């Protein structure tokens, strides 16, 4: 199992992903499920940025004093786009939750099952 010790950072992102997934599956409040979703999204972004790292790498900002090796810049661009996707999905989900609360008076899933 020695390779896992070397790839501890990847393992940490998987743990975060699974904490988020557990919240989405198990929590009884819709808003908490949404927070679990956000945690899952940040966990995948963590994996993507971590995969782009290089030993002793500097930030991908070129300049007079910046010296290679540089972190791979593409993962940073992907995660920037991903964060924006995450916030717009969350904003729509929150608007939907306001409507659910207006129509059913609660965000608890067991209450909702009874009233719908």
């Amino acid at each position, binding site marked *: 199992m020695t390779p896992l010790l070397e790839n501890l950072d990847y393992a940490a992102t998987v743990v975060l*992903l699974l904490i988020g*997934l557990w919240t*989405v599956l198990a929590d009884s409040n*819709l808003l908490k*499920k*949404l927070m679990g*979703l956000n945690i*899952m*999204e940040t966990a*995948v972004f963590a*994996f*993507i940025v971590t*995969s782009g790292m290089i030993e002793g790498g500097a930030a991908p900002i070129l300049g007079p004093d910046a010296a290679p090796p540089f972190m791979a810049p*593409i*993962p940073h661009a*992907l995660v920037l*786009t*991903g964060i924006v*996707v995450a916030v*717009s*999905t969350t904003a*729509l*989900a929150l*608007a*939907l*939750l306001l*409507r*659910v609360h207006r*129509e*059913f008076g609660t965000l608890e899933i067991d209450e*909702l099952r009874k009233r*719908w």
Partner: protein
Amino acid sequence: MTTHWLPALVAIPIAGGVLVPTMSRRWAPAWGFGVLIATLGVALFLTGLLREDTVSYAVGGWPPPYGIELRFDVLSTFAVPIALVAALAVPFATHSNEPVTTPEGVAVILVGTGGMMGFVVAADFFTLFVFLEVLSISAYGMVAMSEERGAGLAAFRYLLMGTVASIVILLSVGLLYTLTGSLNMADVGQRLPDGGLPLHLAIGGLAAGFLLKAAVFPLHVWLPDAHATAPSAVSAILSGLIVKMGIIGLLRTPGLEHLHELLIWVGAASLLAGALFALVQDDLKRMLAYSTVSNIGLVVLGLAVDRTGATVHILNHAIIKASLFLAAGAFIHRAGSRRIEGTGRSMPLTTSAFAVGGIAAIGIPPTGGFTGKWMIVLGALEAGRWGFAVMILLGAVILALCYARFVVVVAFRPSPADREGTSEAPLVMLVPIFVLAALSVGVGIIGGPFAAFVGK
């Protein structure tokens, strides 16, 4: 071959959608219809170009794998039914009091169409993911357009499951990027390692994500509520087009042959479960939603045995399912509620269109539903899978019962006293229904040569 019309295919509907909120409410549907007809024209032009050679375009001038490549190949011909169904749904919805044709509603439909265009032409895995999100968010918005109580909850459940699927897809794209160092589909395909757990996790993740987006049993639980509560014009887009994006995503997944066995069983299960659930529904739109799950199951089965047959079937099924949902919308519009017994008696044209659509959905020759389904059956037989070929025919029989039942309910059962004077659906609803119903048969007739062209 490269042409500026390829990025224009994506840019036109999105530009149209971005400009709609600046317009007055009266002109929004007309503007939406015009933009979508223009998009249809571009899609047809690109399909014409496809006969000579695949059209590809390096955005920004950077050749792949350094820049993003757009590619119009056989699967991208799906752009034609997308533009057609979306264009016909907008005028159809002008009568419904739901906010489908408000400036914001038209913007959601236009940008969603642009997202689908981007999705079918993307030749880069991350661009595929970004446009998958564009069309998914517009789909969640479409479900929430309904005024019905509970539409918000149905949309939220759809969003929750759809976003979990997107997260799994993004993780898989990240894994593929770590393994190959590139995001261009062709480049990744060549540089894939020959095995290893990360590769199987990536392929499995992509497949699972797209199977959920395509609402394949048992990941279909979000679809019935979402498609049944959405306004009918929009259900045509959801069930006819957006659900198929998951299948196109599956067809883009590299190394799918590792999963053929799984796809056959999941497809067969979805085929039968969808048909059986459809049999027990008493609401027309829920029945149509479950029949979508069944047809998607057939296509997933087809992916493993006869890829061309599956591709032809999703193209035909998009038009057939859209015509059925629009017909259902016309019945509900005239009946004023979801109880639509007997409304067909005074709506002969709509009822006949619905019957034609039903026949096409079952897959009776020469309609469009037959060509793809028959190729998949032959493929299953060639692969020596007798059991699954029988299952496909059994599924068709069960669906036949469902549609027959509803034709009887709508056309022959006595309608309640208070609804004696219902008249035929308004013209602006009838024309889209008839165009799509005619195409569901027409596509069947030209199916043969088209299938040969797809198989090329």
